[in-house]
Structure formats: structure tokens, C-alpha cells
């Protein structure tokens, strides 16, 4: 297999990486046993499968793919919506399901100068504009749940999977924005120049994914 045929896949570290490699194994892609989510390496190669993985921050996955240093990527739809990169969105892998929601204190009622804290300013801005609501969006990088408690914002926009984090902070979900799962994305040129290998991997994954969901 020539070097040109190796596919580089950018993946977020942690849970998504674990689930995605599990999916690849189910699809019959031979991955070495030491390819696992608790690896501390930044690159992992699976020569037998002709794959190599870049382990990066989730929000950076579409960047690596858009610039072509990775041919493919696995990334949450939340990141794709927020980053708006020019990549192919090939397949819904159905892993790491969660949703994007508006949350606030249980007794929340409309305020005069609404403020929304979020790690996803683009998604929040677009959502409230589409609702015809005028809000100020405040970008935070973490601990978003704190914002309504201390009066920085009256609501937040964030990812909800089990709802436990919201509950623990005394918040409640107010509006459902959109469902989120991880997607397989591809670089525009790789999609063309390595189409055979990408198509092959796509079909293997698609057959595993389709089995898991009612068609």
C-alpha cells in the first residue's frame, strides 16, 4: 500500500475516540489492540488498516480536515455547526448522542435585557435570531452552568446528554435546539483524490451504523 493510500483521520481525544474506534472494529477495520481512548499519544497509526489517527481537541477536528492535513474526521455536529468549515459531511455515525438546549433557572421568565452565556456563540446567535428574539450572547469557555447562578446571564445554551450537570446546578432545560451526534467528515480534495479508499471506509461504517438504527 503506497503512502498515498494511507488515510489520516482526525479524532477528538476521549469518549468519541473510544466509540469511533469501536465502530471501526465492528466494521471489520483491523486496529491494533493498543489503539484506545486513554492513549496519551497525539498520533496513532494502524498500518494494517492503512489508517493513521491524529488525536486533537474536538473543536479543532474540522480545521485539520478543512486544511487537508487530515483526510477524514470524526466530530460532533455541535462543533460542525459552530465552526462552519468547508468540508464534506458524509455520514451520521450515531455515536455520542446528545442535544443542544437552552437552559435556565426553573423560575425563569423573560427579562428586559436578555443575556445568554455559551461555548457556542454562533449557534446561540443564529437560534435566537431565527426565533425573533433579541439577546446578548456572552462567550464562555467552560463552567457555563455557573452563569445564571451568579447573574452573568439569565440563560445558557449548551450540550445536554443526561441532564445531570444541569440538575446538579439547579438548572432546567427550557428549549430544545437540535439533536447532536458525531459525524464522519471529509476534506474536499481527499474526497476526490482518495475516493476509492474513502468510499470503502464509508460503506463499511454505513453498514454498521444502519444496523444500529431502525430504517
Amino acid at each position, binding site marked *: 500500500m503506497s503512502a*498515498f493510500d494511507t488515510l489520516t483521520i482526525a479524532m477528538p481525544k476521549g469518549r468519541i475516540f473510544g466509540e469511533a474506534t469501536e465502530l471501526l472494529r465492528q466494521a471489520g477495520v483491523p486496529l491494533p489492540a493498543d489503539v484506545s481512548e486513554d492513549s496519551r499519544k497525539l498520533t496513532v497509526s494502524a498500518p494494517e488498516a492503512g489508517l493513521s489517527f491524529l488525536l486533537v481537541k474536538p473543536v479543532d477536528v474540522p480545521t485539520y480536515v478543512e*486544511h*487537508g492535513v487530515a483526510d477524514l474526521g470524526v466530530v460532533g455536529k455541535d462543533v460542525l455547526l459552530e465552526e462552519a468549515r*468547508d468540508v*464534506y459531511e458524509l455520514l451520521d455515525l450515531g455515536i455520542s448522542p446528545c442535544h443542544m438546549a437552552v437552559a435556565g433557572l426553573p423560575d425563569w421568565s423573560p427579562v428586559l435585557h436578555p443575556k445568554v452565556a455559551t461555548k457556542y456563540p454562533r449557534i446561540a446567535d443564529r437560534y435566537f435570531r431565527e426565533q425573533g428574539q433579541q439577546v446578548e450572547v456572552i462567550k464562555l469557555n467552560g463552567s457555563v452552568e455557573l452563569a445564571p447562578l451568579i447573574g452573568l446571564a439569565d440563560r445558557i445554551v449548551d450540550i445536554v446528554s443526561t441532564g445531570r450537570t444541569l440538575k446538579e446546578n439547579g438548572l432546567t432545560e427550557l428549549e430544545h435546539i437540535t439533536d447532536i451526534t458525531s459525524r464522519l467528515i471529509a476534506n*474536499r*480534495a481527499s474526497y*476526490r*483524490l482518495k*475516493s476509492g479508499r474513502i468510499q470503502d471506509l464509508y460503506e463499511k461504517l454505513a453498514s454498521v451504523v444502519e444496523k444500529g438504527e431502525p430504517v
Partner: protein
Amino acid sequence: MAKPREFEKPTGVRDFPPRVAEKKRAVEERVRVCFERWGYREVITPTLEYFETVGGASAIEEHKLFKLLDRDGQTLVLRPDQTAPIARVVASMLREEPLPLRLYYHANVFRAQENEAGRNAEFYQSGVELVGDASPEADAEVVALAMEALQACEIEPLQIVVGHIGLLDGLLSERLTDRSQAALLKESLGQRNFVAYRNQVRRFQLPKEDEENLLSLLRIRGNREQLTVLRDLAHTGRTREAVSHLEAMWDALEDMGAAGHVVLDLSLVGSLDYYTGIYFEGYGSAKGAYLVSGGRYDRLLEQFDRPTPATGFGLKTDRLMEASPSFDREGERIALAYSPKAREEAFREARRLREAGQAVFLYRFKEGETAVPAAMRKSFDRVLEVKEDGHVRI
């Protein structure tokens, strides 16, 4: 905003140092030779155009245009592409010229970019427009010429992907009575979001066969054989005509010996309300981006009151400069160092070398100096010295 430092430039514009400028010139020269060999002639249009005319007709969205006002308060734009200005020229200055017209350009175009800093707002394109020819041969010609231009820049591997907007439109509307559904699907294809496309198709609750047909459009990728698949999907006259046009174009490409790197993909769409027939993109070794895009735009010229079919493409010169290998320079760069007393001999030698096609850089030895400084030697292929006796030494 803070006052800019003296070396700063506006966001998105670049200086080209000599080595980059040389590469740009070399790429443009190679593609120019291709264009001229196919009978295309250069046109040059102004950097400024009216927003009302060229700005509105352009395929580039309004929010990406650089706008300014002239003395009369008219809104002007820095040209966002070169196709609309050429359409204006064809409909005005060249109105009486017999068709078809074959025109080419090298031009800088301007587009406001969002994402991160460092993306170009001014970039270079070289391309052709073939105006007044609706035939499959005309489409084959521009595809073949685009490929030849990429090959002239030693792009390898190379692939040209061809879609067809009119055919896609036809296949969608044969299965969807609601125009807004077709628009949604085309938008998803334009965003290269196949997940959304599939979800939308399933949500429409169509008859099983129609649903399967629409989903299969994502899979129709490959060589000529895919055209037979398309023929089976096409039900109405207009759609069948589009398939026939593609088949005839493919035949013409084969007769040109240029079908080798061409791939059909109906999910490939360009700017949606601009292209009417084939749309194509060319990919090469560049990381991540396409090097050329083009297609048929039969409705543009009517906006300039000369309804005429047209087809063409634009090469992304900046990406081509990056993707192509470094080209050998013709002739050598020679430093010719001389002692003041041997100046006449040195100048005679320099002229002789220049006439032989070499680039000669003159260097006068300073008082007591006997050799060219090492730091300077590095930038030349050869260093010649003409000492006081008038002899040339290497």
C-alpha cells in the same frame, strides 16, 4: 481600532516578494500558452465596476463584495470575479463580433472573507470564457483545456469532477412536486452535507422508488458508465436532453483524448443560480482545495442584454502556485564583479551574456576588495570576476 503600524496592510491582502512573484509569472505564462494554443485571446477589464450591473450579475454573494462610492454617489465594487465583467464586454464593446468568442484573462479579484485572519481577500485567477456556443463540444473543450492548463503546471495526481446543474434540477423536480423541497436538497448538496440530504429525502415521505432514486444520486460517481444509470433515471424530455448532452460531451472528451482524468458526480454543485449546465472542479496535489472551477452559465449574458450561451472556467492561481512543483528558471543568474579599471571589458562581457539569455547582475569591487562577499554569492548560479587585466575568471 488602533492606528496601524507603518508596515501593516489591510486584512487579506499580500505582498509578493520576488520568488513568489516569479512563480506567479511562471504559472500564468504556462497557462497562457495553453489558452492561446486553443485560440483564446486576452481581455483586460477594469478593477472597478458598478454594483448595479456586474456586482448583481456575479456569482459571488453580495456580502462578500468590497463596495465603495464614486463621486456621484454610485455604488462601485472591486471586481469579485472576471466572468461577469467579460460578459459585459461581450455585450457591449464586442457586441458586433461574430460568435463564438474565445477569451481569456489573468486578473486579481476581491472578496471579503469571514473566517480567520490570513485568508486572502485579493487573489489571482486565470481563466477562459467560450461565449456563443451551446454544443457539447464547447463544454468538452473547456474541460479539456482546464486539464491541459493544470498539466502544464505539472499538477499530479489530477482529477476533474463534472456535475450537471440542469440535469440535477430535472431529476429532482421529476420526483418532487414541491419546488421548496428541491431547493432544500440542492442547498444541502451545495454545503456538501450528505447527512442532511439523506435526512431530508427520508423526511419527505416519498414513494419508495423515488426515495431510493434520490438517495442514489449521491452514489452516482465514476466514469462514463454512470451515464447509463442516469439515462434510466431520466423520465422527461428536458432531463433526457441533459443526459444526451453529457454523453455527447463525454464522447467529445474521448475523441480529444482527454477523458482519462474526468469523473462524473451529480452531487457536485456550484453557485446555484448561476450555472445552468455542466459544473466542474479540478483537484490536484494541493492540500484540501480545488484548483479550478467552471461550467456552463447560459443565463448570464441576457442580464447584459445579449442572450447567448456561454461556458468557461477560472484557475485559482494562488493555489496553483502552491500545488505545482518549482519550475526551472530559463537561463542563469550570474553575478559579474569587476574592478573599476576593467569596467569597459566587464560591460562588454555582461552584454554578451545578456544577449545569450542570461540574467547578469553587475557588482563593482570596492577599494581593496578582491572577491565577491560570500553572502551575496549564494543568490547566484555563477559568479564571474573581471579583474584589472580585463580577463574573465570564474
